């Protein structure tokens, strides 16, 4: 499969009054053509920053890309000029934002908001653009699209607005869609519909999708591969089946364990990972998960592990999987 996007050792810092916050600390992963990749991890682990970096949407005044490459069709987006970036944004890579209630312009008609990107990127006539917008609204399941296009965002419900946002992201038939928690702000019944919609569209149009979420149920349902992030780093990546059947990093294991299960007994309390992630203003030298890890070893405190291959598709950043790791300690993880 062809790699559409490859991020190599991306580091992003934010300038704050307290100092440099290392929001993303050497993230590497890739997205193949026609694939849905999940980016999971708890709040503040750098998922959204990574996603916004791909489109270079971070505020330039207080953020900077310290190192790394974001290769899109083997072109490094970090080196691309703003002028050229404008032709990529919305056109080849588009984004679905988290909160449909605030991500639409309140004083513009829905139809206009859908076609403005199309008219800029594809140089089509207004009537043609409107025809396309109508098709898209039908595709995302908005009834009476012609009437709806002349309405304003406040006349739509949350779920309907998110459909509009999705239609907006699809209008130029991008090769990559970044969906930043597209269902977090919606209620559960709508969530399922929206996710099914994304999956169907991805299948129909063969686009690649990066889905940012902290909902593992969503991941299992529609994703092909998973990238787990923790404290600004990738700690594990692999196929969905691998991650769910055989999580290797202690953090991933913890995540899996903390999902409530149907077969749980009534008085069994829900598992949670003790502690909180490190302050990224002064990240630790060793493994970022050291202080919360049940299997922590001496080496973990001093040295940060790199991603190690478990097999050709699954990688993890944990010393336990180092060829020289004590087999006994690996053994102790079996019972999880």
């Amino acid at each position, binding site marked *: 499969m062809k790699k559409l996007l490859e991020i190599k050792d991306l580091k992003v810092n934010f300038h704050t009054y307290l100092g440099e916050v290392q929001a993303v600390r050497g993230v590497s992963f890739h997205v193949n053509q026609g694939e849905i990749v999940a980016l999971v991890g708890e709040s503040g682990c750098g998922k959204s920053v990574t996603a916004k970096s791909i489109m270079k949407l971070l505020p330039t005044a207080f953020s900077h890309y310290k190192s790394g490459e974001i290769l899109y069709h083997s072109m490094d987006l970090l080196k691309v000029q703003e002028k050229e970036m404008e032709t990529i944004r919305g056109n080849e890579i588009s984004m679905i934002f988290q909160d449909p209630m605030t991500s639409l312009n309140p*004083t513009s008609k829905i139809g206009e908001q859908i076609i403005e990107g199309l008219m800029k990127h594809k140089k089509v006539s207004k009537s043609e653009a409107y025809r396309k917008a109508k098709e898209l609204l039908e595709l995302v399941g908005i009834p009476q699209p012609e009437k709806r296009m002349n309405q304003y965002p406040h006349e739509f419900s949350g779920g309907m607005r998110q459909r509009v946002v999705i239609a907006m992201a699809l209008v130029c038939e991008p090769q990559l869609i970044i969906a930043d928690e597209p269902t977090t702000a919606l209620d559960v019944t709508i969530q399922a519909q929206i996710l099914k919609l994304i999956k169907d569209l991805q299948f129909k149009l063969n686009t690649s999708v990066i889905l940012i979420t902290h909902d593992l149920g969503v991941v299992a349902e529609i994703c092909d591969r998973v990238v787990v992030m923790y404290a600004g780093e990738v700690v594990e990546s692999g196929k969905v089946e691998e991650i769910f059947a055989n999580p290797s990093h202690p953090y991933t294991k913890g995540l899996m364990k903390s999902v409530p299960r149907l077969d749980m007994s009534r008085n069994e309390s829900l598992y949670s990972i003790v502690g909180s992630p490190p302050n990224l203003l002064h990240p630790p030298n060793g493994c970022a998960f050291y202080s919360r890890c049940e299997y922590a070893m001496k080496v973990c405190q001093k040295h940060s592990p790199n991603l190690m291959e478990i097999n050709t598709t699954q990688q993890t950043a944990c010393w336990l999987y180092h060829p020289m790791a004590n087999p006994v300690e690996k053994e102790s993880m079996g019972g999880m």
Partner: protein
Amino acid sequence: MLKYIFKRFLWSILTLWAVITVTFMIMHFIPGDPFAREGTMPEAVYKNLNEHYHLDQPLFIQYTRYLTSLIQFDFGPSLKSNTMTVNDFIKQGFPVSLHLGTQAILLAVVLGMILGVVAAYNRNKWQDYLSMILAIVGISVPSFIMATFLINFFAVKWGIFPVATWKSWAHTVLPTIALSMMPMAFIARLMRSSMLEVLSQDYMITAKAKGLKGKFILIHYAIKNAILPVVTVLGILTANLITGSFIIESIFGIPGIGELFVKGIFNRDYPVILGSTVFYSMILIFLIFIIDIAYTWLDPRIKVIGENN
């Protein structure tokens, strides 16, 4: 919509009536009367004058007389001028004040918005500080100081613009600038804070993520959303400017209606005071009505009550 306009119209009439009544009563209850100052006036003349202008009649009769003449758009005679009625004064002065005020409000809106937008886009940079210093100067320096300052440099020292009459367009330049300083500064500050709020909204990132051009985002996303608070104050600002400024008109020797009101109060010229108050109220009510209609057009979230589709 028509129903709404009709309802608003009725309310406007009611408001006007309240303004008239309150002004009328206050005017008559303050001590003194229009002819009392001229102490040398013989008693018989004083009595005749009062009789001529119906000032000897009970207050209620005077009040109803005034209202009936007002319905026919007759503001009554001036007590101090033998030849001119209040209508004549307004007819003569208002076009001049309207001309000056329109120029001033246009300048204030255009410049104020540019300053506000530039300041917000360059928050905490020198452009921001410069704009806000200008705004603070505009708000805190009184217009008579600004006017004398402008006259001193642009007219007396450098001789760029003529002053002290109302003839050519060049004569209008300095008074327009002097008159527009305060509203300009006000609009600049308002626009800046409103822009800052809009710039931090999620839909601004959406716009950028769509790959739209900076200029397009500025006009269709930023200004379109940030302009609403400015529109709100525009009604009152415009009403103030086009009904003339006593200070600016006196300093520049402009024959507008600004001085009419002030002179009317000094002279206790009842019809002039009432006439200018009613005239000002009418303009204000009309402009606020226009602004309300403009609002529903600018911000689709605001809908006229009772209008449903």
